[in-house]
């Protein structure tokens, strides 16, 4: 087995035992990148030189017994996290040459935990998309079938972990941008509670929905990195000063007697039969683990997509106003006056999907339309949140499909935004309610594409989520296949 195929906990054990060095892991990962990146295209920017230096530094610390929980582990960052001195594009032409003078809080935390950064991964421009096709830098491919999309918007991170181009990766999830690609690529992906992981230095898409989370090869790795990135940050006003439990302590505990809620609204027409079968099987697995499945209702589920496509574009239309060509980033050439400079810069700097959402959002906030759209959507969002509060009175966790379909083909939905938007139909609700969710691999289609199952829990119940996911993982015994690249 190659080092790049191992998990964080496997590599850490070997590092601490002195069997391998951090430099060897990093060489293995970059060897893999050299071999498969031309097919996968997971990265926008590689950080090879600094990675080698960081590996050497980590090696030194491990020898002295000072290494942090991620010492010497190569991880990838979605190109939405600001990295000091390293170009951060957010998948957009408008930030093609932007080099932040600061690190995101998450990047600082990973750095001080000893992580080695392999590079910045590809994404839908400003995280707007479900396929990573909306990137100025070209589409990322699904390692299981390079004719298919990896999901999005954090598709580069999901693909990089799947392809062995890093050991773990980080992304952001505004409506499913971690869980959906995790499901489509066959890895574990978690969106924590809103306020659990600092958004400082995360380039904003929709501020009230964005949350940072990890992609890992198994649930244990997910708990390890959550221990590193979770916690209060005084630099973020919406960060919550709540104690972070040891997430590893939830692993391996059983879920006997737990009530697992199955929302009836989530088994809809249009769900892929193979996906539905895999989820039905997953329900039997948790029952086999001693939990009881109970039907629950989330009555406002039908409104989730509509509410999301008002709230998120509205916030985005404001968040993206700063990209005006004045201070940093791309500026279109000659302009006669200020207005023309704005128009040319933003017309050429943003892609079609971003412009579409800026227009939708601007419209939803306009005077005369605000009450009918933004205000109404905010009110319905409150009802969706209440659905979950009610549901969690009757169950410990909720189990749903992550995505209604497995990975679709490149270009299949690019001309049909509405069809694309439905990719996130099962994941959006968690962002609207602010609750945590995790996607765990639960099988394969007959064509060999991965399928994911989603668990949801109440606010700040990441521990419970990890307990359910780890119990599921243990009992499901999904065969560990590897993509043939």
């Amino acid at each position, binding site marked *: 087995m190659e080092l790049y195929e191992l998990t964080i906990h496997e590599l850490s054990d070997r590092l601490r035992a002195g069997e391998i060095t951090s430099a060897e892991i990093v060489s293995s990962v970059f060897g893999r990148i050299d071999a498969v990146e031309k097919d996968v295209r997971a990265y926008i920017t590689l950080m090879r030189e600094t990675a080698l230096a960081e590996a050497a530094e980590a090696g030194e610390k491990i020898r002295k017994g000072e290494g942090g929980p991620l010492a010497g582990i190569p991880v990838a960052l979605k190109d939405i996290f600001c990295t000091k001195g390293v170009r951060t594009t957010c998948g957009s032409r408008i930030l093609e040459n932007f080099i932040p003078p*600061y690190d995101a809080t998450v990047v600082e935390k990973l750095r001080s935990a000893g992580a080695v950064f392999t590079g910045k991964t590809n994404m839908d421009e400003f995280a707007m998309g479900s396929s990573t096709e909306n990137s100025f830098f070209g589409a990322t491919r699904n390692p299981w079938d390079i004719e298919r999309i990896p999901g999005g918007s954090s598709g580069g991170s999901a693909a990089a972990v799947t392809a062995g181009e890093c050991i773990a990766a980080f992304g952001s999830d505004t409506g499913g941008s971690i869980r959906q690609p995790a499901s489509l690529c066959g890895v574990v992906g978690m969106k924590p509670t809103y306020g659990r992981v600092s958004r400082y230095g995360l*380039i904003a898409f929709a501020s009230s929905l964005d949350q940072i989370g990890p992609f890992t090869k198994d649930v244990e790795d997910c708990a390890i990195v959550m221990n590193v990135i979770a916690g209060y940050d005084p630099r973020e*006003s919406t960060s919550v000063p709540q104690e972070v439990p040891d997430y590893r302590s939830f692993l391996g505990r059983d879920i006997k007697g737990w009530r697992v809620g199955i929302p009836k609204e989530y088994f809809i027409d249009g769900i892929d039969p193979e996906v539905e079968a895999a989820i039905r099987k997953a329900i039997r697995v948790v029952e086999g683990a001693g939990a009881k499945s109970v039907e629950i209702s989330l009555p406002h589920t039908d409104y989730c997509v509509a509410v999301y496509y008002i709230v998120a574009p509205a916030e985005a239309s404001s968040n993206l106003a*700063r990209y005006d060509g004045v*201070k940093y980033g791309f500026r279109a050439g000659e302009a006669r006056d200020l207005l023309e400079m704005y128009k040319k810069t933003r017309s050429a700097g943003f892609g079609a999907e971003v412009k579409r959402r800026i227009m939708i959002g*601007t419209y939803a*906030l306009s005077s005369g339309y605000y009450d009918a759209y933004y205000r109404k959507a905010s009110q319905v969002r409150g009802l969706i949140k209440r659905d979950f509060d009610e549901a969690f009175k009757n169950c410990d966790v909720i189990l749903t499909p992550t995505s209604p379909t497995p990975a679709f083909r490149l270009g299949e939905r690019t001309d049909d935004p509405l069809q694309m938007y439905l990719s996130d139909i099962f994941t959006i609700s968690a962002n609207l309610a602010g609750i945590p969710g995790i996607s765990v691999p639960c099988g394969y289609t007959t064509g060999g594409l991965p399928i994911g199952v989603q668990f949801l829990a109440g606010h700040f119940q990441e521990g419970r989520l990890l307990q359910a996911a780890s119990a599921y993982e243990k009992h499901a015994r999904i065969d560990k296949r590897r993509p043939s690249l």
Partner: protein
Amino acid sequence: MEYEPVIGLEVHAQLLTEAKIFCGCSAKFGAAPNTHACPVCLGMPGVLPVLNRKVVEFMLKMALATNCRINRVCSFARKNYFYPDLPKGYQISQYASPPAEHGWIEVELNGGKKRIGITRIHMEEDAGKLLHDERNPVSHVDLNRTGVPLIEIVSEPDIRGAEEAAAYLRRLHETLVYLEICDGNMEEGSFRCDANVSLRPAGTEAFGTRAELKNMNSFRNVQRALEYEIKRQRYVLEGGGKVAQETRLWDDTAGVTHSMRGKEEAHDYRYFPDPDLVPVVIDDAWLDSVRKTLPELPLERRERFVRDYKIPAYDAGVLTASRELADYYEELVRLSGEPKLASNWVMGDVLRFLNEEKKGIGACPIAPASLADLIRLIQAGTISGKMAKEVSEEMYRTGKPPEKIISEKGLVQITDEGALTEMIAEIIAENPAQLAQYRAGKEKVFGFFVGQAMKATQGKANPQLINDLLKKMLAGDK
């Protein structure tokens, strides 16, 4: 037809907090361009605002001083528009839920008092500044001012004339400066005013169409601009025309307002709650702690000065023009025990010296204790009032205590009756002719003897004593 002007004012006051409202940068004015600017100020991707709680406290002081109702929960909103001095493309302000509403202040008008309502006070961040190159077609952006805290104070449309508007503004200004939350500098833009003006037929209720006036950077300009605009609108209405709803700029040099943009071009700011900030909760403990720091306000203090120190209302007004000046005066009263004399000295010499150098009382080299000493020396007769003028000038110039100046200059008044009697006797003996004239009834000659006596003592004799002695001795009743 008689028309009545209806005016509402919007005042923006920069707050004197150390740090900006949403980051740790210094809020001080006057630094080299873009040296007080961090990634938050620059609106860089991914950075987030964190509210400076001092700003809330400063806002609360003004809200309490203007009798506002405090809302216990308020929140921030984004005001969206594009401009190069606005790095995020939106200004963080407050919209649907302001922290303070329904307040009022009282202004004095022609001897009477009038209450003017305050609709709301809210917090927001200032924008940066554009510097236009005179010679080249380029503009530069200075973001030092970006994020400097502001409060916006919106009045009710209660104001009925230009003079009234100016009186209201002076009261607001005075209160802000008194609270030490704003330096009130209008030229530097730390106190800015926009006005909404409309006319309606006198005696009617409904509002006419209003124009918004901008670019008035002094009390005088506000008054002039309003006077002009009222006249302009009256002219339009009397000519059978309609006042357009528009924004107009005051042109200080030409003395006119002209249209900047019409209703059609008005911005749609697309306000919505800022998702990066959580609602501000103002609890009793916080409000009480702010209330405790409130100083006595100028109007109350003015009334107390008249009542307790028995000085004229005008004097009290001058002495309470700033909190520092009033503090100076009160300290002098405490040390000298002479409210009236203290008032004369402060309003006379002290303010004259300071005004000549365009300085504030904070820069006064004469400490209240020294001035109290001077008053005591005059009352004890050690020096004359005339000498005191000379001494006070020297005190201002050198900062020395009065006793020192008096002894250095040999200014001590001669009050030794024995010595003076001897000297006067000599003068009388040397001038028999004048003595004869005086005794013959030529009273004017008295002045001659006073002059001789002052000359002999180089002006240091106590004039009252000289008068008394001369009268007695010239009459011969020695």
